[in-house]
């Protein structure tokens, strides 16, 4: 294998030129991307957030996705400039304000995976690894999933993904997709205080999700983004302001069913998908988890990784 060249090794002008020409080629997890944008603030965000990701050669590489984010052409660009996400000529989203182009690229990449990567079982969940076992954190938006994930990957857990857990049904393993961690509103400052060493893209305000910023994935997680791992825990997190930490064991069958509630494409995998997930869930621990204090939550996860976490029994 040729020596790995990080995107961060590119001089900013070179990065911007490649991106503008649609020749910025990089790998993230199992996917190879060929990105395109003429927007300087998108280049800046990509340069920061993907600095640790390996570049891929333009020639001889099959690219899974060729996403592009650029300004909308026409008169509108003078009145109210907007950005548009595009994949192979297809525009799945309505245009957004030009300032939102960088997060739009991230949301577009999520869309690429959920809509096209059906060789995997894709679950709307964060996934983090410690000691060879993965904790999958499936949760609806607003439950504190990404905040908890960001905190844990700044306390020694390896980031597999903050948004899309990828399951390889052939091997029954979780695959890393160590991309930027999406944080919203108050969570941005919470994680800045919790992990001052973490790096963030510029905060973008007034998006559909409020104010958003992306946290750069830890270098070690990106370096190991070809290492799959087995399922250890399914944790259903819920942030509850002021509430004491609570962890309640779930039966395996209930954990399995709740996991399915967050799977995008399980139904496409038929019996094989069922058998695969059942094999993965059988030795894993499932739990409902509510928290309000990140320090307390990260300590709990330390104990979970050591098989010493106190759990209320399943009802």
């Amino acid at each position, binding site marked *: 294998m040729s020596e790995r060249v990080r995107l961060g090794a590119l001089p900013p002008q070179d990065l911007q030129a490649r991106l503008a020409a649609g020749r910025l080629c990089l790998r993230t997890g199992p996917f190879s991307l060929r990105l395109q944008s003429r927007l300087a603030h998108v280049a800046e965000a990509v340069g920061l957030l993907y600095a640790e990701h390996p570049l891929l050669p333009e020639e001889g590489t099959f690219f899974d996705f060729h996403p592009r984010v650029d300004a909308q052409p026409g008169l509108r660009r003078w009145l109210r400039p907007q950005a548009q996400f595009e994949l192979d000529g297809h525009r799945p989203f309505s245009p957004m304000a030009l300032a939102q182009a960088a997060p739009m690229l991230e949301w577009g990449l999520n869309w690429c995976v959920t809509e096209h990567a059906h060789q995997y079982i894709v679950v709307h969940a964060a996934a983090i690894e410690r000691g060879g076992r993965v904790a999958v954190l499936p949760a609806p938006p607003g439950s504190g999933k990404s905040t908890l994930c960001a905190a844990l990957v700044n306390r020694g857990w390896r980031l597999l993904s903050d948004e899309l857990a990828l399951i390889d049904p052939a091997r029954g393993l979780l695959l890393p997709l160590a991309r930027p961690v999406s944080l919203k509103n108050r969570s941005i400052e919470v994680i800045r205080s919790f992990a001052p060493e973490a790096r963030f893209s510029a905060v973008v305000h007034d998006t559909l999700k409020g104010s958003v910023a992306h946290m750069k994935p830890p270098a070690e997680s990106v370096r190991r983004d070809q290492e799959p791992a087995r399922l250890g825990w399914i944790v259903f997190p819920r942030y509850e302001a002021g509430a004491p930490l609570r962890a309640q064991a779930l039966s395996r*069958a209930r954990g399995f069913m709740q996991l399915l509630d967050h799977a995008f494409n399980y139904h496409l995998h*038929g*019996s094989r998908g069922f058998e695969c997930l059942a094999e993965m869930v059988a030795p894993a621990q499932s739990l409902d988890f509510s928290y309000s204090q990140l320090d307390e939550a990260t300590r709990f996860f330390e104990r979970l990784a050591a098989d010493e976490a106190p759990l209320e029994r399943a009802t």
Partner: protein
Amino acid sequence: MSGAARWSCLLAENSPIRHWDGEFLVFNPANASTHLIGAPAFEVLQTLRQTPVPLSLAELAERLLGAEAVEDEAFLAELGTCLQQFEDLGLAETLSA
């Protein structure tokens, strides 16, 4: 529900099933759906599944709990509800005589 109605299981013989801690997970390949079923309800489904011909409510009750169950109105009502739920989930079908 008609007294003449007969029930049969729609679950294929090779449908994958998992049994953990008194709960059953059933995958129905016909519609790619997965169901969590408690032990008593699974026994109903399994009895239907293992019977080559459709069963009436009374015949099913007898196979599950013996002859006296046929006279147990409360049990029959509960069994009828269970079968209706299986039908709603696509796990069983009712055939009118």
